[in-house]
């Protein structure tokens, strides 16, 4: 389908608007969507939508708007507008909203990559333990029992050393 504005490029943006209680639908290309102020995609709205915070007109959700990070003073409203957090502590302050958002963007909410060299042995072990347990689960699901047994042994060793450190 061609863009209804320029009638040249392929329409990739579907736009719905309520004008005088009438639903108006438009199919436009990305460039026209960008250029046409009326259709401008609002990053604020996009983030709110991702975080499941679309507010129906006239209803203000008070608890969200007052959330504030005690370390840098960032408010959740500011985050919704810019899409940026103020500091590392904001991740704790807005934890609930961010978790929902991360799930929608990334699907899986646990880190699976690099650990900084400076992270202490205990956290490192806990992190490795979690990864191993997940891998064990995958192996069982895939019926790779030999590999699963090896991983189980590794888990036992790690758990033991973690317990010893605590004791």
């Amino acid at each position: 389908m061609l863009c209804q504005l320029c009638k040249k490029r392929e329409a990739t943006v579907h736009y719905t608007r309520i004008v005088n209680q009438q639903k108006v639908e438009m199919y436009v290309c990305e460039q026209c969507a960008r250029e046409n102020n009326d259709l401008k995609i609002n990053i604020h709205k996009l983030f709110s939508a991702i975080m499941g915070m679309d507010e129906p007109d006239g209803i203000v959700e008070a608890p969200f708007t007052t959330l504030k990070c005690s370390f840098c003073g960032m408010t959740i409203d500011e985050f919704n507008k810019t899409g940026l957090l103020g500091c590392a502590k904001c991740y704790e302050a807005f934890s609930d909203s961010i978790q929902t958002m991360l799930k929608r963007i990334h699907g899986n909410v646990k880190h699976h990559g690099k650990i900084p060299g400076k992270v202490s042995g205990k956290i490192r072990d806990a992190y490795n333990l979690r990864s191993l347990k997940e891998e064990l689960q995958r192996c069982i699901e895939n019926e790779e029992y030999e590999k699963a047994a090896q991983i189980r042994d590794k888990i036992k060793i790690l758990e033991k050393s973690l317990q010893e450190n605590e004791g």
Partner: protein
Amino acid sequence: MDKWYINKGPDSDVILSSRVRLARNFKKYPFPHKTTPEQQRQIIEETKNALFSGNRNMADNFTYIDFTGLDAVEKAVLVEKHVVSKELLETSRISGILLSNDERISIMINEEDHLRIQCLATGMQLSEAWEICTGIDDLLSETIDFCWDENIGYLTSCPTNIGTAIRASVMMHLPALTMTGYIKPVLEALGKLGMAVRGMYGENTEASGNMFQLSNQITLGKSEEDILLSIKNIATQIIEQERSLRQHLLNQNKYQLEDRVFRSFGILKNSRIISTDECLKRLSDLRLGVDMGIIEGISIESINELILSVQPGNLQKREGRILDANERDIVRARLVREILNKQKNY
């Protein structure tokens, strides 16, 4: 020293370059947009110290470029070389980059995150670029405490980059897929696979000269190696599609293809005024012709060099003065003629 972007790398008939970028933030400072100028200065100093302290080699190989006083042309040159992002140019914060002498490695300071460690490589070399990035990250981590959480990994100022905080991409030249229209279903499929496809200069840019940048969107829940592998696997599929379509075009539409390539070659060798857009389109045809053996005596390296040199910033730097758009089109046409006529068979 040879700059990395001129040379040919693995799979260079389709893949121009590979790039890996890691975002890192200091634990003790708020994210860049919440920092004071004083903190911004400290971040720059501490990063320089972390890179240089106890490592002479690094001090010899890296230069710090202060962005605050840099003129517009120099900045544009760096963006065109993909060494820095457009975002860094636009920031009002005190910012700069640590750049390696071969211009492959850059550490952007005070961009959207405190640090963006980036490595570029020619052709398909994602793993190589990753090894370098992670090595630099390890070195910096010896001195700097970065924000990291065991559940959500490296913390970034925008939550879309969290976790591994890695963005890996390959720059692909896809003339046959574009010409035949097959690019559309390919692009649609990539979106579903959690990949982003953009134009030559990243976000909000159109694909010029049939260049497409393929990058990961998901940064959390997968390891860095898995992310790189999935891009590599997808790129490999696209490379195969592109190659087989090129062969198909040559077999089925030999004259049309040759005509297109030679017409573009003729325009490049003879035009007196040429816009960046047209120039990149013609260079894309020329590159295709050289890759397929339709045109001989022109090196891929010279085309790589041209793709960069004809961009507005590089053009003005070479000319040594500010040029308006009309002048640029004239100077560009002259430069293209000069470089192509230097090639031996013409």
